[in-house]
């Protein structure tokens, strides 16, 4: 009973903080926070594959990018498209892409899987770069209209207002993260973890491993697409280097490893940490990647379990709980 109370209280405090954030911290920090939340969802969706199923994807940007491009293109070309539809189209774009590539990927694991995802990610990058008539090539696609959010019985809410957009983005991103969390608690979630631990045994227990992997792939891709769609609305600009480049694929991996691969909250913490680090470093230098790399190396060397791994160690010491992670 007390556990439920603590959980409810924590949730209320968290929601309260999120509501108060733009009022207290100002517009600049609010925008930084949206950027963090987008990366958090992106990293959490990646972690469904990396942490839960044990599949390292170097091409996760293709879903993020497809989500962003689909949303941007649909807003540019379809008049009076509601913002929610644009968002859904973005997710759909990423899901369709995942459905198409998953049969080629799910029978692989380890290095072969990583290399093939890298190839697909780069393929998507090149296609968008060269398909200039539609995607705008390296210049990208900008200035598309961001429509008002229409809620029945009230007028439209202006989405170009940063605070309004903050509430919209946080609701969508937070909702997505909750949905992913729920997904990990289902029987498929258990099967995912078991595939990571011992896929041979899963096979011998009567589960069809490739179809579970492809479901994970599609769900993971769809949520990465949602993150990309919000990114497109937020920046009002998508470009190949911004949403499909190699660094877009590597960033969530770095975040996940720094935060902790074997936990759900790890990627969120990693995304938060890197965002704060970036904002701090930007005052002094442009060489953000250099410092990110340094943090990554130190983390892998001294705390391979990430921040959450360190926390687990402390927790175990305090409460003498026997865990193995």
């Amino acid at each position, binding site marked *: 009973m007390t556990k439920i109370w603590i959980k409810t209280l924590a949730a209320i405090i968290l929601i309260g903080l999120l509501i108060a954030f733009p009022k207290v911290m100002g517009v600049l920090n609010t925008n930084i926070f949206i950027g963090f939340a987008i990366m958090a969802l992106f990293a959490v969706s990646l972690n469904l594959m990396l942490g839960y199923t044990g599949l390292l994807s170097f091409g996760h940007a293709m879903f993020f990018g497809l989500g962003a491009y689909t949303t941007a293109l649909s807003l540019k070309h379809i008049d009076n498209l509601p913002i929610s539809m644009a968002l859904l189209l973005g997710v759909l774009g990423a899901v369709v892409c995942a459905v198409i590539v998953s049969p080629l990927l799910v029978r692989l694991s380890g290095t072969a899987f990583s290399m093939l995802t890298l190839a697909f990610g780069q393929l998507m990058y090149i296609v968008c770069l060269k398909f200039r008539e539609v995607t705008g090539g390296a210049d990208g696609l900008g200035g598309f209209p961001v429509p008002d959010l229409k809620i029945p019985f009230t007028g439209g809410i202006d989405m170009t207002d940063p605070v309004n957009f903050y509430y919209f983005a946080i609701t969508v991103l937070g909702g997505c993260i909750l949905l992913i969390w*729920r997904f990990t*608690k289902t029987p498929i979630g258990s099967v995912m973890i078991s595939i990571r*631990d*011992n896929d041979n045994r899963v096979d*011998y227990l009567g589960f069809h491993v490739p179809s579970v992997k492809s479901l994970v792939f599609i769900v993971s891709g769809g949520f990465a697409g949602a993150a990309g769609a919000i990114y497109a609305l937020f920046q009002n600009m998508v470009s190949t280097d911004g949403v499909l480049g190699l660094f877009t694929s590597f960033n969530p991996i770095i975040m996940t490893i720094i935060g902790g691969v074997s936990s759900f909250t790890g990627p969120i913490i990693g995304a938060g940490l890197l965002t704060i680090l970036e904002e701090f470093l930007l005052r002094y230098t442009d060489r953000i990647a250099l410092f990110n790399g340094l943090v990554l190396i130190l983390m892998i060397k001294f705390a391979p379990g990430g921040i959450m791994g360190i926390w687990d160690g402390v927790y175990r010491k305090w409460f003498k709980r026997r865990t*193995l992670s």
Partner: protein
Amino acid sequence: MNILETKDLLFDYSGHKVLNGVNLEIREGERHAVIGPNGAGKTTLFNVITGSYKPSSGSIKFQGREISGMKPYQLNRMGVGRSFQITSTFAKQTVFQNARMGILSKQKVRFNPFSKVDKMHKITNETNLLLEQSNLAESADMPAGLLSYGKNRALEICLALSTDPQLVMLDEPTAGISKDETKTLVELIRKLTENKTMVIIEHDMDVVFSLADRITVLHHGEVLACDAPEVIKNDPFVKQAYLGTLEV
């Protein structure tokens, strides 16, 4: 009636015939042991039957149906369960979560992305029951990787039986554990495989002769003999090839 039949089963591993025409008949409900010196092809025989490898030629029939070349998950769904010589569990997950994987499969909840698995009371109850039967209830919350070796072997058998297969294939279940633990494990195997057909690979002759209804002796990928334990004990060829040094 035979639940499992292999005919002229051949498995060629880059020119080396690991299985060289194995004919095996497993009767429904019997406890059948496969023995033979190291390298005789026992584990390969298991791997070919349960779908790890495709046989080079020959046929395997399970309940009258041709199964050679089928995948492990298909065979499991048809009712073939197996354990591994080298313990193959989910080491980072708790014993309960290990066993629950089998129950999820047994109850055909293999592809459910909606319900909360912790709230599926039928699954939870059945998992607890299975753990109790396997004498693992006390260790339910412990990560499998922290179990003692003997308990780990018990979990291995528990996993093999968790999907309630008709045919259970155990690959050296007692390998590497102490005499006392072996006794408990044999009792466990006897209890859990009641009303099932069991094929067991075993090196411990005490276990073999106390469990098995019939014994097949494998040597250089061929069946040397297949008969009741008393007959096998006194078979001069078998003695020479395998039992001779053991003075049974």
